């Protein structure tokens, strides 16, 4: 059973569909009790970092932090990944989970187009359960204007006006800036890896 956290941030349909395609049983919830009992958690999200403030008021943030500490595998996607960092300049008054170090910032203006939309490559891959079987340079689909810095938790980087964290992992907590549910066979492979990740 995979618990998909619904905090009314954009569109969950694609993520749920991809997980189901891989044979997972999916529970979509806004209830922190479901998160407390979860075996595996996906935190999706497209849109604005401000939306993650809903996690604070509903008790979902505490429930997820407790689950992460217990070793429950968790995958944050896009804004869901960004929330795992300390915060974002997109909504300075909202604090993230702080599971990953660093702050999410906007791409600089005056260079390439922002948002960064389209298929870009995963590079500098680090060994680990999440990216098992993924080759250097494989493509994933991105759509975002803010991004996380490359640091100790980064397991894959992507280049767009400098490098940023395309995927991060600390313990059983993973984040991907791209949309695995929209990244064809590569994305499905990464989701499958997450579904097979063992609780530690």
């Amino acid at each position, binding site marked *: 059973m995979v618990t998909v956290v619904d905090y009314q941030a*954009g*569109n969950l*349909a*694609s993520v749920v*569909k*991809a997980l189901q*395609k891989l044979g997972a049983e999916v529970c979509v919830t806004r209830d922190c009790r479901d998160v407390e009992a979860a075996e595996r958690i996906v935190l999706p999200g*497209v*849109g*604005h970092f401000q939306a993650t403030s809903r996690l604070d008021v509903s008790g979902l943030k505490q429930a997820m932090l407790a689950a992460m500490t217990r070793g429950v595998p968790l995958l944050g996607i896009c804004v869901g990944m960004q929330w795992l960092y300390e915060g974002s300049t997109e909504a300075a008054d909202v604090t993230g989970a702080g599971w990953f170090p660093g702050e999410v910032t906007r791409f600089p*203006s005056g260079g*390439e*187009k*922002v*948002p*960064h*939309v*389209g*298929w*870009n*490559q995963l590079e500098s891959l680090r060994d680990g359960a999440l990216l098992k079987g993924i080759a250097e340079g494989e*493509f994933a*689909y*991105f*759509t*975002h204007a803010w991004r996380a810095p490359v640091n100790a938790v980064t397991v894959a980087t992507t*280049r*767009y006006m400098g490098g940023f964290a395309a995927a991060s992992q600390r313990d059983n907590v993973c984040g991907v800036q791209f*949309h695995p*549910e*929209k*990244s*064809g*066979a590569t*994305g*499905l492979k990464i989701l499958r890896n997450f579904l097979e990740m063992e609780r530690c």
Partner: protein
Amino acid sequence: MLTRRVIACLDVRDGRVVKGVQFVDLIDAGDPAQLAWRHAESGADEIVLLDITATHEGRATLLETVRRAAAQLFVPLTVGGGIRTLQDAEAVFAAGADKVSLNSAALANPELMTEIGSQFGAQAVVVAIDARRDPHAADPVRNARVYTHGGRRDAGRTVVEWACEAESRGAGEILLTSMDADGTRSGFDCELTAAVSTAVGIPVIASGGAGSVSDFAEVFTAGRADAALAASIFHFGVSSARELKAQLATQKIAVRYPC
């Protein structure tokens, strides 16, 4: 490196494809769900489904089509045609679309872009612009005008100015169709595409006029397009988006290849 996208577009009426990308290795079953899947499998980076159904009953058919297409699709899916309200957009997203394409509804009610964008994110809002050069203007490209109703009605706006407004109101991408080039197979309107693409800071998808592989190469270089829509590519001597991208890759255009 961020790659240039090749997008397959399917025109759908009453649940059947009426004009699509006719890659030779596809069996045209007329079923949008099956064709969308086949295009994705054949290397298309994205799928656009444009509903040209005029009737109210057709709307329910569209949602069912989107649902069936999305069920097996793991690349981005944009749905356009007849989305006039936030509720219309919500229904299309719930059916599995990742982005909506707004055309005349955005012109009639620009606030709609902001409404949908604030609920689903700017990345989910594509503004489609049907453009014609203004042959009477001193600069026909900079003064190109926006049209509606299949190119029959002048919307009273210039293309560059409308694209900039769409961006400022929260659109995430512009889908620019040259009504002059559409159907001619003599190449995209690269000058117009470049004019829009350099005026806005968001991605621009070029559409209309593709007739050869080199047309794609040109719109991705001189035309500054971030993506290009493929229709009736069958005539170009390539059998799939994959083969199109293989040829673009040999011309040093950054594309998702192998795919």
